[in-house]
């Protein structure tokens, strides 16, 4: 399976994502933001980081970079596009998934392990996972998901919520919400479920010596689903 990770100026999880994808059997290519064409890929990843320094608004400038037109076309034709952290911010800024990401509720950067509960398994990302609650890692300043009431209704009606912040046993209460996100939303899909944006970093959880191994389960499963 072929994947592509886009490097924007200021991306800083691009290498980590490259390492993770290759570790679990993808043949990954790094793609420069100023290129016009995507290489032939089964999965395109917008990595974490601080594209364009997060100046103006997180993800807004990157969403206008040259390669994004190809990414948008790829997504519209049904290709799998995943945005992690800053990648999620780029996805909302480019309109591929609804809503926006505000500054964290307590106005502080948060780097820690969190639990997330999978809401919808009827998609290539989470299909066949036999676990509901995952321990993943977050590291962000602007992960506070927000959208209008109308958008929220649509998101819920279309079952677009991918993951919620929760307790270790899957309770999605406000006290397990690290950043003030609406309804504890940690990740969402587009209507068609081929585009996934999420704040947690599965690529930081791929080795038992690191923060944990739940990221490994995610990548292995993803590869099997799209094989």
């Amino acid at each position, binding site marked *: 399976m072929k994947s592509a990770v886009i490097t924007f100026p200021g991306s800083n999880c691009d290498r*980590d994502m490259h390492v*993770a994808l290759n570790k679990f059997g993808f043949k990954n290519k790094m793609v420069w933001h100023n290129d016009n064409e995507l290489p032939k890929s089964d999965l395109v990843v917008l990595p974490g980081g601080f594209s364009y320094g997060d100046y103006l608004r997180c993800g807004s400038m990157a969403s206008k970079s040259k390669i994004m037109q190809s990414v948008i076309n790829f997504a519209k034709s049904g290709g799998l596009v995943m945005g992690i952290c800053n990648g999620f911010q780029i996805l909302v800024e480019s309109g591929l998934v609804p809503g926006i990401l505000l500054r964290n509720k307590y106005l502080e950067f948060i780097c820690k392990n969190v639990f997330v509960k999978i809401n919808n398994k009827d998609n290539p990302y989470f299909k066949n996972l036999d676990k509901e609650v995952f321990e993943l890692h977050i590291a962000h300043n602007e992960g506070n998901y927000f959208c209008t009431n109308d958008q929220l209704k649509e998101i819920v009606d279309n079952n677009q919520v991918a993951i919620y912040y929760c307790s270790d046993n899957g309770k999605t209460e406000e006290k397990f919400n690290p950043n003030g996100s609406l309804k504890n939303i940690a990740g969402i899909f587009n209507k068609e479920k081929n585009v996934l944006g999420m704040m947690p970093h599965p690529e930081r959880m791929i080795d038992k010596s*690191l923060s944990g191994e739940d990221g490994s389960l995610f990548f292995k499963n993803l590869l099997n689903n799209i094989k």
Partner: protein
Amino acid sequence: MEVNEQIAIDHGLKKDEYKKICDLLKRVPNLTELGIFSAMWNEHCSYKSSRLHLKKLPTSGKKVIQGPGENAGVIDIEDGDAIVFKIESHNHPSFIEPYQGAATGVGGIMRDVFTMGARPIANLNSIHFGSSQHKKTKNLLRGVVHGIGGYGNCMGVPTIAGQTSFDSSYNGNILVNAMTLGLVKKNKIFYSKAAGLNKPVIYVGSKTGRDGIHGASMASASFDEKIEEKKPTVQVGDPFTEKLLLEACLELMAGDSIIAIQDMGAAGLTSSSIEMASKGNLGIELNLNKVPCRESKMTPYEIMLSESQERMLIVLENGKENIAKKIFDKWDLDFAIIGKTTNTRNIELYYDEKQVACIPINTLVENSPMYDRKWKKTKLPKKNLIKKEEFKKFKIKEVLNKILSNPNVCSKEWIWQQYDHTVMGDTIQKPGGDSGVVRVHGTDKAVAATVDSSAIYCWAHPLTGGKQVVCESWRNLISVGATPIAITNCLNFGSPEKEENMGEFVECVQGIGEACEYLKFPVVSGNVSFYNQTKEIGIKPTPSIGGVGLIKDYKLMITMDFKEINNLVLIIGKTEGHIDQSLFARNILNEKNGPPPEINLFNEKNNGETVLQLIKSNLIRSAHDVSIGGIITAVSKMCIKGNIGIEFDKPKYFMSEIEYLFSEDQGRYVIEIEPKNLKKVESILNKNSVHFDKFGKITDKNMIINEKTKVTIDELKAYNTNWLSNYMN
């Protein structure tokens, strides 16, 4: 403007220094030249008060590739890999403007490291604030933490360890020391020594603005009531540009275009150009009209003294200009050929086709002032005689609550959760342990790093304190299973013009030197920050030591959390009951006098090497060094982290329980072993003549101190974890 003595004094130069400049030049300097002298001759850049003493530090060893004198030190970690590291202060700017001061401190030290060709792989910091009651402390702490995070997080370099303390001596002068480690191949290290004539001198990175002019001079003076006026001397950081600069420089460094490279840090274009030429025994000629400027009509004086961030100066091989330009264009960075190397041994500056400065480089470097300042020796204070009965009136549980919630002991999670400590995917020991540990990407090796300081001990007796802080660094590396290799030091002191402060400096350096020599733990880089002083009040002497060690197989790394019920806990090293200058003495007895605990370098080395041997033989499950707060504090933290309890053995020692549990004798560790390994461990300890006490056994949810005293793990957590977040929110 005609230069005179008063203008020189306004530039921070002394009368006799101004006279020396005129003598060396055999004329009166113009304003630009005076600015250059003031930038090169201030304390921050010239080390004029410290040089004489720093020379005495041990700086070489089998593993040292580069000692002090370059942008950073370099050590060998085998297989062709090397670690580049250094610590640096950004104290003065951080007090004036905490966010930008701290952020640019982090940016500056990372530049020092990647200038040498190394990709930064870990950041650390040592930050010190005034009393928690002081009105400025909270805002300064918040600003500094946001600044460190703002820069480091954006760069995508994990912040893996640090140290935070509070003491009223920092009320008017906080300390912000930032440290970076970088990884480089041994045969791809870049240096700042220029070579060859008529080589193009390239300016890359951000444009030059009017920020930070005279920053280094500001950092070479004490504060007074007009401190707010100094805000314009603080630089403004742009971590995004630095990230681009990092990637662009590493891309250029992969080829063979660069002869020498130097970042524009303190004293900006002035010190970078002069240092490269000086090291290469060359002259340098710059056309200041070519320097990319952010603002119009900047004068030569401003261009030369600006401390705008994220800039580099490079001496290229002839004919490589286009290769370099293409890379910097790709990363959207400014690139300009601004001059060339010459054989004149002068720095010559041109502006609007006129020569605006011409100074022999040796007058700026070799002839810079060096002072043998007067200093006063600190006598070892007399021990306090505390009667045994005194200790009996204390309830251990109450004391433990106070100690664990003390601002200098409590958990600093509120701080390090704001730092990205997991980016790069190799952090195998997070902040909150004895050392931060990152793997060497793609290998079985890992590098451990710690930053430590003990201002209380250094204040009580600088010679002992200097030794102690090196030993503490050594212990923190050992405790995670790393073989200590070398240190970097950041020496934060008051005014060198005061005999007491200068004495503190001289004796701390002597102590550091003695310990480093004995432990074969050389100093490979560092920096001195004097004038941490507001009017007459200086800080407590605070040398920060950044230690680095190697773990050959990262799977053998040790953490401090207690692991398993029924395992045994031993205390390595002898407990003598030294209470003076302990947290207990200062905060519970309210006794501020007396000597710090004694350092016995033989025991320190022997105990440390033995613990390391046990770790490497897979005989230890968890380890933690004993530092402030004594044995019980160390053990409490191991319980909290492991979420598991301990039952203390019946005491067999000849002192009160309080003295045994809270004294701060040195050279000690707490280790957890499996019962089946006890014989083996005992025989190794005995063979190496290492003193140890059998201390207790791991249980489920309680810390059982004696028949009468029991503390639950939840209580320990409540004591230790809440103070800082409550204070800040």
